[in-house]
């Protein structure tokens, strides 16, 4: 449902030549491009949109949780491609980097290693139907409002004031983020700190019995602190005859040790 919503919204913005990046929505001039490229763009959009909606549906319906997680990966990938069509270059690649490359890895870790049996979880599935229908209706209404309204977002600066689209996306984003949106940015930093602390306090069970070797201490160890060589007289003098060779050999070993 969320994916469908996203597709509809994005398609709507895209068709009206509105593009999303950085701090706002930017009107885009496409008159210079020939209509063929635009057609190709639409074909690519419909392919990715179809795959996105299908895979989002599969996330909910497939039985195997690992398959569901992988379909979610596919869904993220397709929405990244659709964002690219909207010129949101940086956001699209960061979507792949953060969601596909990091968040979904955690999902897979959890799903694979917990090895959950989902059958008991599915028993009350139909009971959630009214709530689901309500949310679906809500979203449909929101979609309809967006599609039918002329003012997508009121209070936006006029399109002409915006920089041209071909300029480096990331750089513009950086300039906006670190001038206009500085305060929210610092708050994001604080939220990430909270996330670190929360993750550690939730998962660290014990203060981990430390038996880790410390290489930095191991290297500085001197022989003298560990081994002491003592010269000792043997208790009884070695007998001559068959045991002579043995004692000679062991003495030779000792001399070798001392000369090291």
């Amino acid at each position, binding site marked *: 449902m969320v994916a469908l919503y996203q597709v509809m919204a994005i398609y709507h913005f895209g068709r009206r030549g509105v593009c999303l990046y950085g701090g706002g929505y930017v009107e885009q001039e496409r008159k210079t491009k020939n209509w*063929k490229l635009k057609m*190709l763009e639409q074909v690519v959009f419909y392919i990715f949109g179809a795959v996105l909606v299908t895979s989002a549906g599969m996330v909910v319906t497939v039985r*195997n949780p*690992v*398959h569901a997680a*992988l379909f979610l*990966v596919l869904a993220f990938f397709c929405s990244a491609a659709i964002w690219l069509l909207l010129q949101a*270059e*940086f956001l699209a*690649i*960061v979507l*792949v*980097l953060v969601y*596909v*490359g*990091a968040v979904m*890895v955690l999902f*897979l*870790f959890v799903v*694979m*290693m917990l090895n959950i049996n989902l059958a008991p979880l599915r028993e009350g599935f139909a009971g959630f139907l009214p709530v689901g229908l309500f949310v679906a209706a809500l979203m449909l209404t929101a979609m309809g409002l967006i599609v039918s309204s002329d003012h997508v977002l009121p209070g936006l600066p006029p399109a002409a004031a915006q920089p041209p689209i071909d300029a*480096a*996306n*990331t750089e513009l984003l950086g300039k906006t983020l670190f001038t206009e949106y500085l305060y929210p940015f610092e708050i994001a930093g604080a939220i990430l700190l909270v996330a670190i602390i929360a993750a550690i306090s939730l998962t660290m069970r014990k203060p981990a019995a430390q038996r*880790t070797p410390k*290489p930095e201490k191991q290297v500085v160890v001197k022989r003298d602190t560990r081994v002491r060589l003592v010269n000792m007289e043997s208790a009884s003098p070695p007998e001559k005859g068959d045991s002579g060779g043995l004692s000679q050999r062991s003495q030779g070993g000792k001399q070798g040790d001392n000369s090291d």
Partner: protein
Amino acid sequence: MFEYLFDAIRDGILAPVVAMVAPAGYESYTLYTLETLVKILAILIPLLLSVLYLTYAERRIIGLIQCRIGPNRVGFFGRRVWGLGQPIADAVKLLFKEIIIPTGANKRLFIIAPLLSVAPSLAAWAVVPFDDTLVLADINAGLLYILALTSLAVYGVIIAGWASNSKYAFLGAMRSAAQIVAYEIAMGFALVCVLIAAGSLNLGEIISSQSGSILHWFWLPLLPIFLVYFISGVAETNRAPFDVAEGESEIVAGFHVEYGGMAFSIFFMAEYANMILISVLTAVLFCGGWLSPFQGLPLIGAIPYISEPSILWLLIKTSVFLFLFLWFRATFPRYRYDQIMRLGWKVFLPITIVWIVVIAGMVVARVPPWFS
């Protein structure tokens, strides 16, 4: 030079064919797609040949380092040419081996896993600039794209380990996932340092911002980052001494223990393509890419050709880093798992964070000769 070649292929071979075959109105699409395919093949075929002969070079070089001979028998037409036929014989042998799919395995994911591991490692090559103009997709966010694609490499490993339904495979997959994840952070911060120094995400612009002389290359102002990046690259590709994911003496072959024949060689191909990619990227980001090391030197810099930028310099630099990969494998014993995690989180991460501050300070203060 190369763009003339591609133009000639397009105008001389592709355009007439397209004019005959393609449906009316779609000529430009067909021509564009075919032209892109030709360019992709121009990257892929040399790349796959390099992968093939990198395996040969690995065995020969490690053999020499360990006072052995290495493969020297298989040649062409009854002649042994230093064993140069060996990789081709290996490939043919692997082609005719049985692909076993274990009964307990998840069949679909078992087949998808090698594909997921090879596709990103090849597609990352789309943004690598081989020359001033020779790049398939000259995108603005090139470096970001590379980072995103390398972060996808972990999927092939995890899925292979899980789908095999074998304990060794699962252990290897989990180990390597945690390891890749740890080094990716260090790698990401290292790339941020390069970005601060270059001021652009486009790989071509990163190279041109290093021009001047060998001292203008980023290895000097980013010396610790240079080392961190290359070592993280070795760890990301699961190569020795960080190869606990394969660890043949402990968990046999790790995540691909159940794979045989061509299915195994797809993983193998992905690993070697990644090795070459890391080497190229190190050359591009820290060693001036296609720039000549003799540029700007008093006497030798005046000689034509030798001081000019060329794709040959990039290839030479890449080979040097590839040699380092092999040298590492011949020299270092395998790290213990806790040591690997310690190195990634407790050594590399602090180094990169400190160096971000240093290099950003240098850029803001416009320290010559790099950032003036």
